[in-house]
Structure formats: C-alpha cells, structure tokens
C-alpha cells in the first residue's frame, strides 16, 4: 500500500551530538505503531522534527506522498498530521464542546467567521455530540475543562485531535499521568480509533504498547535499532542492551 506517512534519513544534531541520526520509517493507513526508547533516545526531538517545530539538518518528511519538510507546523496539521500532547494542553476556561467545535470549525475553514455560534450550527454540533458521545464525555460537554477530571481531559485531548480528521495521528503518551482506574477508558478509546487512520504512539507503558501496537519501533541514541512485531521486540538483544535494565525496572513497576 502507498505509505501515508514517510520519514526519510532524518538527521538533526545539537552541537556535535546527533540526536536524530538517519531515521527512516514508513507507515500505511491503518497502521498502529508504537515508538519506544529509553530516556534521552531522541523521541521528543523526533516528534518535533516530524511535526515541523524543529528543522532537520537533512532528510525528508512526507505526508500522503507530498514532501512537507519545508512546510511549517501549521501547514502539516492542515495536510493531516495531527499530534496530541504528553501533558494535556487544553484551554482551562473553555468547555469540551468548545474545544471540539473549534477543531471542527478550523478543519472546515470556518474558525475565522465573525458571526454565528457553533451551538447554532447543526453540522458542527452533530460532530461535537458524536465525538464526545463516543468518548463518554457527553454529560460534561458544557463544563469548563478546569472542572473535569484529568482522565477525561486526556480523552478530550484525543477528541480534539480526532475532530481535525487526521490521516496520521501522533500520540505522545496518551495515558501519561492518568490514574490506573481510568486507563481502561483510554485504552478503549485507542482501540476505537478509525480503522484507516495511521497511528504512531510514543509510549513508556509497555503493557499499553503490547496491547495497542502491531508494530514496535525502538529508538536508541537517535537511531532506530529495532522495527518489527511486538513479540520480537523483547527478544532482540540490541533492544535489551539499549535499555540496560531500565526496562526491567519499568516492567516491575507496571
């Protein structure tokens, strides 16, 4: 299948340190990929390079076959590359309905409109109600985000991303900071993501990685050291070496 998202030989160094060193990967619609790696492996830099918040020294990023390396972060979002944030970035004074409506309006080119209100736009409201309903947030739709629980904020973060109708979704630790009791709801939401959406998840929680991903990419010292199935990843000697026990500790904690 024609890849929907491609990274070719991406390189970026800070000073003399190659933080992203010749990284290439390709994803097809419907892919569920987890990107893992020990702390300092260069995951954050990789995300910033891909989303356009950081310029690469060399290499290319393609969305749907179109090269976007020279296109800024906003342009990449408009071409279908959407990310969620590791620490929720929501508007405290706004309601879930307003968040999703803003995303829908932006996607449909109406966020600059000077009149009307989304509450009076049937098509926007239908989408808002549908998305929030699927994520179990209907009842909280009109409460300020500052009043809703963190687990629900994580779900809303996902709702905002989905409202942008992405082709490629970058999830940065979607369950980070969520109490154990609430992770089930988030995992369910991840399982329910649109089938044709390509999802790249950056995650520390290996349980979640194994349940969600059908392909795992391991980043260490800025380079991909493993790209394959979840069942093979723990057997790979290089991966074990890269984690040097830190993964063993992590799995103990989990």
């Amino acid at each position: 299948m024609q890849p929907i998202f491609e990274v070719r030989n991406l390189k970026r160094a800070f000073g003399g340190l190659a933080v992203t060193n010749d990284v290439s990967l390709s994803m097809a619609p419907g892919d569920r990929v987890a990107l893992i790696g020990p702390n300092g492996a260069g995951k954050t830099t990789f995300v910033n390079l891909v989303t356009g918040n950081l310029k690469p020294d060399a290499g290319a990023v393609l969305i749907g076959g179109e090269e976007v390396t020279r296109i800024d972060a906003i342009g990449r979002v408009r071409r279908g590359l959407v990310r969620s944030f590791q620490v929720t970035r929501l508007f405290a004074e706004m309601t879930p309905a307003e968040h999703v409506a803003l995303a829908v309006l932006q996607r449909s080119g109406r966020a600059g409109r000077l009149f009307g209100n989304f509450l009076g736009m049937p098509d926007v409201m239908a989408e808002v109600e549908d998305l929030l309903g699927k994520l179990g947030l209907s009842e909280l739709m009109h409460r300020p985000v500052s009043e809703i629980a963190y687990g629900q904020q994580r779900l809303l973060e996902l709702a905002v991303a989905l409202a942008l109708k992405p082709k490629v979704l970058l999830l940065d630790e979607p369950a980070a900071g969520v109490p154990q009791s609430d992770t089930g709801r988030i995992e369910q939401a991840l399982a329910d993501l649109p089938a044709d959406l390509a999802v790249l998840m950056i995650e520390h929680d290996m349980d979640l990685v194994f349940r969600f991903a059908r392909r795992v990419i391991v980043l260490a010292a800025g380079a991909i050291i493993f790209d394959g199935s979840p069942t093979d990843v723990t057997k790979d000697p290089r991966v074990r070496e890269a984690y040097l026990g830190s993964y063993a500790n992590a799995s103990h904690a989990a």
Partner: protein
Amino acid sequence: MTMTTTNAMIAAPPARRRYGAGDLVGLAVILLVAVIGYVLFPNNLALLTRIIAAALLVLSLDLVTGYCGVATLGHAALFGAGAYAAGIVSAHYGINDPLAMLAFGIVAGAVAGLVCGVVILRAHGLPQLVLSIALIHLFHELANKASSFTGGSDGLSGIAPSALLGLYEFDLWGRTAYVFGVALLAIVFMLLRLVVRSPFGMLCRGIKEDPIRIRSMGASPKIALTKMYVISGAVAGVGGALNAISTQVVGLDSLSFTMSAESLVMLVLGGTGSLFGALTGTVVFMFFEDVVSAANPFHWLTMVGALLIAVVLFAPKGIYGTAAALVTRRREAP
C-alpha cells in the same frame, strides 16, 4: 472514581452560553444608562459624549488585551488615527458629512490597527509592551511634526461637521452628538457581542490561553491576532471619529501615551475579557476624573490610584468581573 459522571452534572449549556441570550439585556442597560445620564446631567452632555468615546477606546483595547492577551500601552494610536482622519477630511478636504467622517475614522483606525498589530505581534510579554510604547510615541511625534496637516501641538481645528443625516445639526448643548454617540456605542456593542461569541472569538480565547495548542490545531495565531487588531482599530476609530465630530477639535493628547495608559487602567478597573467590564471601568474612571476631581482637585488621582490598588489586590477580575462572578456563584449554589 472519575470516569463516571453524575446526573447532577448538567448536560445543557449554562444560560450565559446560550445562543443570543443577554444581548438585549446589555443593549437595554446601555440605553437606560444613557437616558439616566441625559436626565441627570443635561448640561454636561459633552462630558457624557467624551465618556462614550473613551468607552469605545476601552472596548477596542479589551478586544486585543482582554480577549487575546496582547499587552499594549499604545492603544490610543488607533483612537488618535481615527480622530485625526475624521478631523483632517473635514478641516482640509471639506468632507463634513458626519457619517463620511466616521467612515474615514473607521478606516484609519483599522489601518493603524494593522500597522500596530504587525509590529506589536512580533514580540511577546515585556518586549511587546515596549514595542507598543515605542509605537505610540512614534504616532505622537508624527502628528506633532506634520503640523500643517494636524495642527501640531495647537491641535487640529476647523472641523465643521454638517447636520447628521442632513437633519440634525450638532448643537451647542451637544444633544445631537450625545445621541449620535449612544447610537454608535449601541451598534458597536451589539456587533462586538456577535464577534466575541463567534467562531473567531472562540479562536482568540484559545490563543490567549495557549497559542501553541492553537497552532497544533492548524490555525495561525498571528493571522488571527492581526485580524483582531484590525477590528479593534476600527472600533477605536469609531471612538476617535466621535471625539473629533463632537468636540470639533483634535489634540495630540488623543494620540498620547497617557491616554493609552489610562484606557488600560479603565479596562483593568472594570474587568478584562468582558465587554461590560470595559464599559463599567470607563464609566467609573471618567466619573472619578470629572466628579471627584471637581470636588477634590488635588487628590482625585490619588483616589483613582487607591481604587486601582484595591481592585487589583482584592478583585483581580475587575469591578464588573467580580460582581458577575459573585452573581454566577450565588445562582449556581444549591
């Protein structure tokens, strides 16, 4: 357990968010206050008209500062541009129809808004504030130096607006100007209610809270803020034109740092991020300036200072913002 929601959490939008609610009440309050002002101070309509012009400036400032979080101490540049444009077309080009003068004021305000926006929005925080101060001084100096056009420090005179709609002369008592001002304020207020509730208004509130999040939704904060600056300039231009038409003179003070700072004080007094807050702050400040300064000319500014300190320390949402929050809390209490 956080994921389940209780039935007590209402699914319906709260009244204040409901479509169109509150607008007519707001309009009624403005008109009522205008009538009360007319009845109480029939000999002081010029002052009331000046308050309206200032209110338009403060509303304009609220759009960029209250709704978008832009820090500026140079907002009078937009007001002054409107005032000088309306004045110059009358004094130098014989365009005396007040509505035409108003149109020139609006356009000049919008253009000044675009210029200021493009410059100010290049920076954030303290540098932004400094840029805004630099801009107001530049505008002030420009008006001062171009004295053949602007009258320089003597002020621009020779402004002679003809009858409004060809029917109502601008009389000595300032009745026509006052009614004109009230009508303009009412129209601007209603239009701004539309804007702040619109998708664009929502986008700006989002930018104020987290511009990076807005970018990650595919919207450009800079374009949106520049657009808001142009709208803000048009509103300030209405105020400036009203000032030029009603007083028939434009002075350098309308382009001053002092006026910019005072408008910010008015906004903070009333409460940022709310159109009513802007109006409340203007009325309270101008009331102090006029009534209290007449009663106690030496200490009125001290009293404004004390009031400002009290508001900032004990009611950081401003006079209107705090009152509104109290009412909401009481209403939501079981």
